[in-house]
């Protein structure tokens, strides 16, 4: 395999990993701080994607679409937290699974009623529609590079937020010493709503950005949600650092497996058999990685304190 193609696939893997990180950051924060399993996290991703596609289509501006997706996902997230989720914090994980499963059905059907069952398509913004020549002979889509850039920016922003802001301090303390934080007179309910809204916003950002790469359709949230679960389980539930490492690991593993395995099996199997086996193994690869990580470290790579 030519080295340039390999570099390109690694970049694709990073871009996919960044998407997963945006999803995983919110999910892992919500679990780490509020002890809540949210199966409906993928719904915010879908909401972000639909609102972005619709607003961008109507206004002709991708930036407006992006803003609509972000704001919509954050608002929907905060509303869901206010109406349903906050009643689930101290409940059994099972109740959380049941309620958020119900929310998935609700949101999928709502989107179908409002926007119809047909997938939407979205063009990348004109500014980023070209390619950048990273290395001589390696043009790479500018839009995908931009996604990677946004991911790095968000990771840095989250790091600064959690390390150096007052909200971050409460978040860090809240994860391990809930009662103390509450006793300090911090409005913990508001903090929870903010954290949940922030998670929804990041999911919405991922959804809005994915539009030009994949079709926007019902059920898109669940596909990425399961991968997100794999990411945070590998990384250690509750850990942002774990989410980042897990996301990049899953993104790169999955992308490379899909490219490299067919080549590897093609070397000693006939083409049709090689394609079948390789495709099957490639789809299963990240789950195999997860199983191996958990056998090695049952609480993930970076287990959060108290988790």
């Amino acid at each position, binding site marked *: 395999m030519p080295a340039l193609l390999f570099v390109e696939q690694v970049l694709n893997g990073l871009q996919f990993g960044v998407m997963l990180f945006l999803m995983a950051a919110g999910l892992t924060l919500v679990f780490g701080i509020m002890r809540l399993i949210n199966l409906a996290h993928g719904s915010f991703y879908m909401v972000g994607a639909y609102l972005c596609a619709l607003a961008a289509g109507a206004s002709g501006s991708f930036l407006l679409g992006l803003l609509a997706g972000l704001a919509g996902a954050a608002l929907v997230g905060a509303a869901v937290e206010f109406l349903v989720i906050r009643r689930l914090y101290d409940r059994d994980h099972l*109740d959380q699974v049941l*309620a958020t499963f119900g929310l998935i059905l609700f949101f999928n059907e709502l989107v179908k009623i409002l926007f119809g069952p047909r997938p939407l398509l979205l063009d990348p913004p004109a500014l980023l529609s070209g390619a950048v020549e990273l290395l001589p002979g390696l043009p790479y889509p500018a839009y995908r590079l931009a996604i990677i850039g946004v991911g790095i920016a968000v990771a840095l922003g989250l790091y600064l937020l959690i390390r150096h802001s007052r909200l971050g301090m409460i978040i860090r303390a809240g994860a391990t010493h809930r009662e103390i934080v509450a006793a300090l007179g911090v409005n913990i309910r508001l903090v929870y709503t903010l954290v949940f809204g922030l998670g929804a916003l990041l999911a919405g950002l991922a959804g809005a950005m994915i539009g030009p790469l994949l079709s926007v359709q019902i059920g898109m949230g669940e596909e990425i949600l399961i991968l997100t679960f794999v990411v945070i389980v590998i990384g250690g539930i509750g850990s942002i650092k774990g989410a980042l490492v897990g996301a990049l690991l899953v993104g790169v593993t999955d992308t490379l497996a899909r490219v490299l395995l067919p080549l590897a099996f093609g070397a000693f199997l006939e083409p049709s058999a090689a394609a079948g086996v390789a495709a*099957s193994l490639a789809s299963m690869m990240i789950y195999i990685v997860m199983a191996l990580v958990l056998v090695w470290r049952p609480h*993930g790579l970076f287990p959060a304190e108290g988790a």
Partner: protein
Amino acid sequence: MTRVLLIAAAFGLLALSPLAAWLFDDPFLVTLFTRVVILALAAVALDLVLGYGGLVSLGHAAFLGIGAYTAGILASHAFDGSAFMTWPFEIGGSAQALVTWPLAMLTGGLLAAVLAPICLRTAGVHFIMITLAFAQMLYYFFISLPRYGGEDGLVLFARAEFPGLDLGDDVTFFYLCLILLGGYFLLARRLVAARLGMVLRGAKQNPGRMAALGFPLRRYQLAVYAISGAGTALAGALQAELDLFVSPTLLSWHQSGELVVIVLLGGMGTLIGPVFGAAALVLLEEVLGRFTEHWMFVLGPILVLVALFSRRGLLGWLEARLSR
């Protein structure tokens, strides 16, 4: 006492349900009630690990799917006379229910026994997610089998043969499914009160104390997990016979979620609750589906309300009403 009455009522009503098809002159109702019975079987099996063992499996669709595929693959080989495998020895297909169904249970139980040692290393939310992930893995595995229909699934041409019975007759098939549900239910009910059940329930309440008492917990949890996997796989085989169709959808995580929903809706840790849960969910779908194609828009909020306000499900509600 109320519990025994409700068990009798549930099985009695199910046994009489083909009458409804006759009364309303709607043969489809038999298929609908067979679906209730099959889902109930899978949900009772899930309740063993979930309700009594506190092991929240969000991947039981894997067992449903592997059971369905075991029955379906054997039937398809029997149909075209080909061999399932030729090396190191030849295994052909089979259209005999007494061969394919026990084999479905065996593969389901074995799969559970292989996965359990890995899954049981984890607990709580990790357990939920690792079971989910293994089910996904199997989902992609079956999607990538073109020989057995891949993503499109596998069509069967006739129900399995059963000595002395014509399973092609929907009512006969219904009653056979009901008998199997009854048998598994009885086994499960004995199990939870027997020594193994005590260990299982103790481990749910206080695993640390169980270890201090001297129980090597994982081997008992593994045993129950395998029994649960076998029961769910049998349900999968029956589902394949009912639909004459097997597809990867059976392994989807929606399917796993639906099984958990049935157990919680009916009342977990009761065994009979999931039977009520299966009936409620199937009938709810059917009734809502007649009014609107967007029935999930109504079902979703119902599930949210059940999660928020009903800790003990339908059975808890029924028992409270009856004992008043």
